[in-house]
């Protein structure tokens, strides 16, 4: 029986889809809001749907912020999905004044709805809803090229220092996913990205170091 993984239950995320994705892979997933689990779980998933400020308020109300920060800083196996990636930043234009987990210093910004192209000004739809292409970095641990499903109005533009980033272009180039040690944070929804997404989930589960002693130190790329 493979080790179960823990999923932080945020109440508003599409948790049922995330659970179903792991079930299809034959991996048991347990919902949790316990600080002990956030510290100790061999593998943890932070799903996210909703707004930056509301999600941070929820994590603060559950008392999970310090444990999450430590876990992410030390590179323990953690998968962050969609808003989950944005929460690693320090701030977001979506919720001015709200402080993120601040694993790195960056401000999440809105996808542009007006673009300047060689043929003149044009508009694009926001939110970005649908399948877009992911370009993986060379030597990536988890990420590969492919099509991923997105449902986002905000994105992380600059690659945080010490992280590997896959990119996608929607008017602007942004971080499709970032990885460092056992942490994988995806702006897209791997649980909704067909076989490509399922393969990514499986790789993260199989390849991420499963105990604390093996986790690289903070700052390791």
């Amino acid at each position: 029986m493979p080790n179960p993984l823990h999923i932080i239950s945020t109440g508003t995320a599409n948790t049922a889809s995330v659970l179903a994705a792991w079930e299809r892979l034959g991996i048991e997933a347990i919902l949790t809001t316990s600080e002990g689990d956030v510290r100790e779980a061999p593998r943890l998933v932070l799903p996210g749907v909703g707004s930056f400020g509301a999600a941070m308020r929820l994590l603060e109300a559950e008392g999970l912020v310090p444990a999450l920060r430590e876990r992410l800083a030390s590179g323990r196996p953690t998968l962050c999905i969609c808003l989950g990636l944005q929460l690693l930043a320090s701030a977001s234009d979506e919720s001015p004044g709200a402080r993120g987990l601040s694993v790195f210093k960056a401000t999440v910004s809105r996808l542009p709805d007006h673009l300047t192209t060689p043929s003149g000004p044009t508009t694009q739809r926001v939110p970005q809803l649908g399948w877009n292409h992911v370009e993986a970095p060379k030597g990536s641990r988890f990420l590969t090229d492919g099509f991923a499903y997105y449902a986002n109005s905000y994105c992380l533009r600059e690659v945080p220092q010490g992280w590997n980033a896959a990119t996608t272009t929607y008017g602007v180039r942004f971080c499709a996913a970032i990885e460092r040690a056992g942490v994988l944070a995806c702006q897209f929804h791997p649980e909704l990205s067909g076989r490509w997404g399922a393969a990514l989930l499986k790789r993260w589960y199989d390849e991420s170091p499963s105990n604390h002693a093996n986790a690289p130190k903070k700052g390791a790329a």
Partner: protein
Amino acid sequence: MLTSRVIPCLDCRDGRVVKGVQFQGLRDAGDPVELAARYEAEGADEIVILDVSATPQGRANQTDTIKRVRKVLSIPLTVGGGVRTSDDAKRLLDAGADKVGVNTAAVLDPALLTKLAERFGRQCIVIAIDAARTEPPETNPTRKRGATAAIVSSQPTSWHVVIRSGEDRRPLDAIEWARNATHLGAGEILLTSWDRDGTKAGYDLDLLRAVSSAVTVPVIASGGAAGPQHLIEALQAGADAVLAASIFHDGHYTVRQVKEALAKAGVRVRDDTVTF
């Protein structure tokens, strides 16, 4: 660059997929789990399930259908039909929906859209609009024959909103409603032409052009598709995604064949055959 989505639609009643013309004369079209799994394997980009049952028992079956479909489906699932409150939406999301479609209840109480968006995020909220062409007023024959641009544009085509599965036509302008609904909180529009639905005459392209230029959120075209050419026309008219039911249920085209035809016509579609 974002690709154009092809979305098979499953109209469900009592746990079975049904189909009909203009919401009437429903016939059995198969098992929703089997169809959803097959369409995903063929390259579908998303699945929409619309509950067309009218009874509380039918609604209970719907939750069970969503759970069963979710188990097998690894692409997005949008569910609509009978959503009246944000707790209704929560039940569908808990059962495995990724997006929730709302139609009648939002027309009757537009503030519902704001409540839903605040609770679940606007990317999760789809406003389903059934739009019918408004009959033109009595036309003066001489003016008709000698119509000039100025006169034609003073009588533009308009559409009004239809609710309660077609039993109720509102004096509500569909374009205006599309715009308002997105301001209130809808993150996507599922736009069905009531005149074209089930007719195989192609999507209402005028309606698509009018709505997609009036809003900034994605628009899904629905109602009237009989083949790949109709889907191509809809995407060229400004749709971000195309929804179809009977062309897939009847086995006239597989999703794969449709996406190949789209690619050939220069539409960017997702290649799902590469996984590593």
